[in-house]
């Protein structure tokens, strides 16, 4: 464990922040503007990736900018945990940049300069969150991330978008306040806010009640962006943003910054041993289990594809939190339960990122090409967009934990961790959620490939009234009754939407003619990424980084 003084972490954070200026300056020349975005994304990825080998050896690059406020140094430190998040964010930013070009131009969106500038700023903040070396610097970038993503949420400038933006600000700044209060408590108790592997030493001897309060405040604050119930409701509303934003920010960068904050708190502020001693790990795990089940059930009833994906995100984020929390709760036990659970939770960060990004990209491509947003209007759409919906099917299978796709590996570790730790309740929750995942994703795949607008089947699980035979005839989400499906819902479809007005979809060969490669390329890349993570997890660098993190965080210290 040596620290290497270097400007690389700072450069990795700033490169996209600096790109904001030329992006804003090239308003009238979209190709130049997007050139800057891609250039910054490539540089950022290169800088982040260049620090990975050192992290795998257990070393870390450090930029020290001197004291910031009392007790707090302004230091950026690219350790393994930070690099895990930074690598996911910067790799997927590059992918999303290309996708954004196809999406924003495909829809001829307004305010594209603001969009790309805010996007670059958001990724800067996300990498800043990753490399923060103490709670205050983390808080700094966490708040900047809120500020930078707000223009993206409110992008549409409709009443709905503005309301979503307000809600977003209120929730996330509320969370920020809790983080600040928790940080103040930690500083008050220990005289430092700096992360250290295994936890800040002074906390163990501090007043347990205050320590628990600090833990609760910090986890609540980060839990807002991690969409822990009941603090999740900003996330489905934020789906009003353009789809690349929903994809990269509200499935990867923003929500993962919350999850990342939780993992920093558990691993590097309190340390899993202290978490076990304080008995807060079990509580957090229970909240996570509740969230992942409830969100899955709600997802069943969402007809709007992006909202269904949003609730799926809420649910999947809690897998990560559950893994971390079980790791904390099981730390006191003999055996490797804590280690398995931590690996599972942390590995789910990249795994979920790749899969959910694929799903959002697919939803966006469908929106651009056919202006279809509701699942009930997607019967037979697999003919129109074979590659897109094929990628969707792969990623959806991964979400449900089908082997050979990324989701399986992380869930497998989670299951092993919960079982060997004796937390059978959580194992059951994970399994039930897996079934629910199939229940809400399969109808999408089924309707896309095996139905046509004329010939479709009942979908009792997602459409029948809640309460079965005794339930009322209205649908729980207030959507239109089944009879409303069909041609009338396609009233907004323009002439080149590929929808012939007899009710069927024009058939396209799976050769890329269904859409632009600006969108298909990223979709296929992300889908391929989820398969690689699932087939050869050890070859993909993420699992190795995760093992490095876990071996540093657990006292057992045996590298698996």
């Amino acid at each position, binding site marked *: 464990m040596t620290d290497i003084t270097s400007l690389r972490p700072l450069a990795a954070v700033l490169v996209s922040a600096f790109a904001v200026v030329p992006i804003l300056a090239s*308003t009238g020349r979209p190709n130049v503007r997007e050139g800057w975005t891609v250039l910054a994304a490539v540089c950022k990825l290169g800088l982040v990736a260049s620090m990975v080998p050192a992290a795998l050896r257990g070393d870390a690059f450090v930029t020290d900018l001197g004291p910031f*406020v*009392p007790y707090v140094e302004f230091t950026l430190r690219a350790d393994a945990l930070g690099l895990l998040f930074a690598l996911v964010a910067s790799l997927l930013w590059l992918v999303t940049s290309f996708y954004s070009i196809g999406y924003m131009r495909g829809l001829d969106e307004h305010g594209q*300069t603001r969009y790309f500038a805010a996007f670059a700023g958001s990724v800067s903040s996300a990498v800043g969150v990753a490399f923060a070396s103490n709670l205050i610097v983390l808080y700094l970038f966490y*708040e900047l991330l809120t500020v930078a993503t707000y223009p993206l949420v409110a992008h549409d400038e409709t009443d709905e*978008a*503005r309301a979503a933006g307000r809600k977003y*600000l209120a929730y996330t700044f509320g969370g920020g306040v809790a983080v600040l209060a928790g940080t*103040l408590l930690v500083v*008050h108790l220990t005289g430092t806010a700096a992360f250290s592997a295994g936890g800040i030493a002074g906390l163990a001897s501090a007043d347990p009640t205050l320590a628990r309060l600090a833990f609760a405040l910090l986890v609540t604050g980060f839990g807002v962006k991690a969409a822990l119930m009941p603090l999740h409701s900003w996330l489905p509303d934020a789906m009003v943003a353009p789809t690349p934003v929903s994809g990269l920010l509200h499935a990867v960068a923003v929500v993962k910054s919350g999850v990342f904050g939780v993992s920093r708190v558990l691993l590097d502020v309190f340390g899993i041993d202290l978490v076990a001693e304080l008995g807060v790990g079990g509580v957090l795990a229970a909240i996570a289990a509740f969230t992942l089940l409830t969100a899955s059930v709600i997802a069943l009833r969402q007809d709007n594809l992006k909202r269904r994906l949003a609730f799926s995100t809420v649910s999947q984020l809690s897998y990560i939190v559950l893994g971390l929390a079980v790791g904390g709760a099981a730390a006191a036990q003999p055996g490797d339960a804590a280690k398995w659970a931590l690996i599972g939770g942390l590995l789910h960060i990249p795994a979920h990122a790749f899969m959910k990004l694929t799903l959002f990209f697919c939803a966006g491509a469908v929106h651009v090409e056919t202006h279809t947003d509701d699942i009930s209007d997607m019967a037979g759409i697999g003919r129109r967009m074979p590659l897109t919906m094929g990628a969707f099917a792969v990623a959806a299978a991964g979400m449900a934990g089908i082997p050979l796709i990324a989701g399986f590996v992380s869930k497998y570790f989670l299951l092993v961790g919960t079982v060997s730790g004796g937390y059978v309740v959580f194992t059951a929750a994970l399994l039930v959620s897996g079934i629910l995942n199939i229940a809400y994703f399969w109808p999408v795949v089924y309707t896309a490939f095996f139905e046509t607008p004329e010939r479709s089947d009942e979908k009792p699980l997602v459409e029948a009234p809640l309460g079965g035979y005794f339930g009322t005839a209205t649908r729980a989400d207030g959507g239109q009754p089944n009879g409303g499906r069909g041609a009338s819902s396609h009233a907004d479809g323009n002439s080149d939407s590929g929808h012939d007005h007899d009710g069927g979809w024009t058939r396209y060969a799976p050769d890329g003619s269904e859409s632009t490669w600006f969108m298909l390329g990223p979709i296929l890349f992300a889908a391929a990424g989820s398969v690689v993570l699932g087939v050869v997890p050890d070859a993909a660098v993420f699992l190795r980084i995760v093992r490095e993190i876990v071996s540093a965080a657990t006292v057992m210290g045996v590298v698996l």
Partner: protein
Amino acid sequence: VTVSDLAALVVALPIFGSLVAFLAALVRSKSGWPVAVAATAAQLVVATTLAATAFRDGKISYVVGGFEAPYGIELVVDGLTGTMLVLIAAVSLGVLAFARRAGPRSNPFYAVYMLLVAGLTGMSVTADLFNMYVFLEITGLAAYALVASGERGRSAVAALKYLLVGTVGASLFLLGIGYAYIGTGTLNMADLAVKLAANGYDATLMQTAFALIVVGLFIKVAVFPLHTWQPDAYAGAPDTVSGLISALVSTVAAYALLRVVFTVFGTAFLDANALAHGLLVGGAIVSIVAGSLLAVSQSEVKRMLAYSSVSQFGLVVAAISIGNVTALTGAAVHLVGHAVMKGGLFLTAGLVATETGARTVEEFEGLVERSPVGAAVFGVLAVAMVGVPPTIGFAGKWYIALGAAEAGAWTLLAVIVGSTLLTLAYFARLVERMFFREPPADLEPAIERVGAVTDGGDEAAGDAAGASLGMYAAVVAAAVLAVALGFVVFQYGDAMQPTIESLLS
């Protein structure tokens, strides 16, 4: 000339400038502005020299007229005073850059302007309680006159209200000084502190003096519910004047409160008198919460900003009530930070009104298309005011909150940290309207700026209707400072430590 003579010069210089500005009208009309610029620039040099010396060598003392200290008037410059001197000079100079185009342009205006600078400077450097009252009155009278310099009837009414309420405040302050003098027979602050301790902290005379002085200054600081003059005065004054007085007048009054509470009465007095301490804590909490709630309900932008000040000065009073090194450093940081941010916001509101005529929250809709620079600067300053790091707004809040945690003042800590959300509540309304709404449809085409960039490009800015380069420079400088100062706070806090420690000893 020694450095300590500069302590006298720093007060004399703006008074001299005021006279010259007044007399220059006999030679040539509208010649006040260059005189004021020259005087404030010189003032800035003197203030910076004094502050640098005070930070490097410690306290500077000067006795007026050669009378010995407890009897004669003493002027003292320590780190805190130095901070205020530089702040006053720098803000006055910045506002002058704005005033060149925005007006008012008459010579008497600039004469009063300089008189206000003199009053504020005098309040900062004096170490004599009665002398502080004199400068408080000079400040007050100059401020009433400046508010009244607007052309509308509204300015006159606001100034009258300010005069009535402000005079009550100054009178209470004077009454308090009287009680203190009866009890101790001295007016020198340091001497008062010694004799006060000798009298005992439970002497009724002293408790009364404390209550009168603090309530008098509460009026001047505009602590809720004694704030009623302030929104009218800030909103009714010309834009230049609201920028100046919102940045400086309440700030120096809060400085006076800090100075009197700690140099004259001291922490031991607060420890011995729970009620005195409660007065400060109560004022702080009520001000923070009520000021924000009132700000949310305003429809006029300048009134909203005014109520925001009520809330922000609650934070400073909170820091005074906590009274440890960290919190008082936070008070100094927040006084400076608030001055930069709020002064900048008022000037930006003036700039926006000049460019587009928009003065209400509703009229700010779609502002980014009509006044890109105004909207961008307003956005940055609003974010800083909310306290998003790394801005100065965050730094001040962090110091004060940390001080509250160190002192175990949990209620205050909760209010201070929660104030972030309250601040967000009123600024988010505006930011959303500026950037994410279409401009109102019934806009006259004359003020629609065709082809304006949506992101605040500076090159398109210079030719905007009515606004001068100086106006842009002033508001952009405020935005840059609001962010940049956040990075030097730690060094400043270090430099302030000896000053604050001697204040608390």
